[in-house]
């Protein structure tokens, strides 16, 4: 549904002086109020795309529209976007509250007003008690909350997050990820989140945009992208899929749809990895194709296999998902 605050990219291209193309005519509509993850391997153009939306990178060709207004050449602060940087980029010489109030100071808002506003944002991210500290005195998670508050104080329609969780340890990452989602729901604005972790994207995104080699490979709801990868690249990058080359064409097959059975394709086990809830078993079938099967743990251990064993693998044909390339 189109509402006022959609963000639209129209054939946005970034070409560097050397001729290298970082983003190649990318067009996409980011619906207002949605959590979108730009997902892809490093160097795929996802960060450049984000930085062009933010206005920190010039656009070589194409247009960026926000709320129906062309913002392609506007300075970052006049676009209605705000950016949260990968390393948070907090000003080390300013206290937490002054960091948050920075953009208001630049606008010439008086000290009392801007501090009051900054306090309310610190409350939003649960950092009220740390207002007087310097960034160096905060943990990574706390710094991130401050960076969030600083980005949100400008009342952006779109918040841009550049790999916001990559600097955190795994436990904190999962906690902050829930927090980001909660904030996005509460504020009702769009979050565009760049990441190279598919689990992060699946957990957070209403919509996933998978990028590869400067282009959008596939875009859609998280569940659609995972269950119906359009290309071999998406299937492999999202993980949990086998790409099968059958006489009829190439197909994606979810690893948890592969069964160990009394009948089916003959295979030789090449590896067994215990993963807790599942056992990841790799096996080689004819034609030198490796197949990954995620087998429920209890089921696997009723008749455990080890590398070298001959097994039979089966799957339901209707679960084979055809790939376009």
């Amino acid at each position, binding site marked *: 549904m189109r509402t006022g605050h959609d963000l639209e990219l129209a054939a946005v291209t970034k070409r560097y002086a050397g001729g290298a193309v970082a983003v190649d005519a990318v067009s996409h509509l980011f619906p207002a109020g949605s959590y979108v993850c730009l997902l892809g391997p490093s160097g795929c153009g996802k960060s450049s795309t984000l930085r062009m939306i*933010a206005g*920190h990178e010039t656009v070589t060709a194409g247009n960026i529209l926000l709320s129906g207004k062309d913002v392609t050449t506007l*300075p*970052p*602060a*006049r676009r209605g976007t*705000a*950016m949260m*940087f*990968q*390393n948070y*980029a*907090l*000003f*080390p*010489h300013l206290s937490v509250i002054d960091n948050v109030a*920075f*953009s208001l*100071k*630049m*606008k010439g808002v008086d000290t009392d007003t801007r501090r009051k506003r900054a306090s309310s944002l610190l409350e939003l991210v649960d950092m009220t008690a740390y207002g007087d500290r310097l960034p160096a005195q905060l943990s990574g998670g706390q710094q991130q909350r401050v960076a969030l508050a*600083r*980005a949100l104080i*400008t009342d952006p329609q779109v918040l841009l997050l550049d790999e916001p969780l990559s600097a955190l340890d795994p436990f904190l990452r999962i906690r902050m990820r829930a927090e980001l989602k909660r904030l996005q729901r509460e504020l009702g604005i769009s979050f565009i989140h760049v990441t190279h972790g598919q689990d992060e994207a699946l957990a957070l995104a209403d919509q996933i945009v998978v990028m590869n080699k400067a282009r959008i490979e596939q875009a859609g709801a998280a569940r659609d992208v995972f269950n119906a990868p359009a290309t071999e690249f998406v299937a492999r990058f999202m993980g949990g899929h086998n790409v099968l080359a059958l006489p009829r064409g190439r197909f994606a097959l979810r690893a948890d749809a592969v069964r160990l059975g009394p009948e089916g394709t003959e295979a030789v086990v090449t590896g067994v990895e215990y993963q807790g809830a599942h056992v990841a078993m790799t096996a080689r079938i004819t034609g030198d194709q490796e197949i990954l099967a995620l087998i429920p743990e209890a089921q696997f251990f009723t008749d455990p296999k080890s590398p070298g064993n001959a097994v039979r693998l089966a799957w339901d044909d209707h679960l084979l998902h055809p790939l376009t390339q």
Partner: protein
Amino acid sequence: MAKSLGYPKDISAKMKGAGMERFLKSPNITGWLLASPLALVLALFLILPIILIVVVSFWSATEFSIVPDFSFENYAFLFGSSVTYTVFLNTFKYAAITWAITLILGFTIAYFLAFHVRSQTWQTALFLLCTIPFWTSNIIRMISWIPFLGRNGLANETLISWGVIDAPLEWLLFSDFSVILAFVHLYTLFMVVPIFNTMMRIDRSLLEAATDAGASGFQTLVNVILPLTKPGIMIGSIFVVTLVMGDFITVRFMSGSQSANVGRLISNDIALLQYPSAAATAVVLLGTVLMMISAMLRLVDIRKEL
């Protein structure tokens, strides 16, 4: 003795060796041993001479002899003479003006090099360009100003031929102008280097964050770059202020012996073999400079830079 205690000789020797080894390996001792060469050099060549100067400053002197003594007559003469105050004031004036000019120049050059020169090759090349004046000696750099600034020098002749002035400008050479010009020429690099160094450590994403928050280029400069560059500014300021406060040769050459600073006061005393008086002046100068530095260090914490 070891034998009488029932230990075979070699074991006792081994124990002694082990004790020595343990002694040498204790972290405290290692630290002291590592620090001692530098401490020794400093004690011998810095602390000792300063103590000697302080001692000599209390000696008394006549026209033809120096007498070991403990008298305050040198200090009394120094603080009683109006010349002292004039000369100190003049020295402060040189230091302050040179500091202000080198700071503005140094900050601008460093800012340009650090933030506007994108390619690292150019950065290095331009930085080396700044050091060219240092390829030749201090004195030659100073003296080379003389044919340029003199009454019939290049500057005057050019200005006359352009019709800007009718008569040669007298204040170009052998004046405060030429003294400060030489100081700035000599010492700007001492300001550029530490400021450039600090600026290069500023995370570039901070500048983007400032832009993102709507800061203009000037606001970013004042609110982000300047505060983060303070330690470099302070280190550069200490260099320049101490160098100018202690200088005597630049003032002598460039003022044509018409202006004085504390360094020249000391060098004149030494020329007249008035060592105690020179020592007393040196002690007062040292005290003054140390007070200035400690005041500067109070303003800015430079430890992060060291």
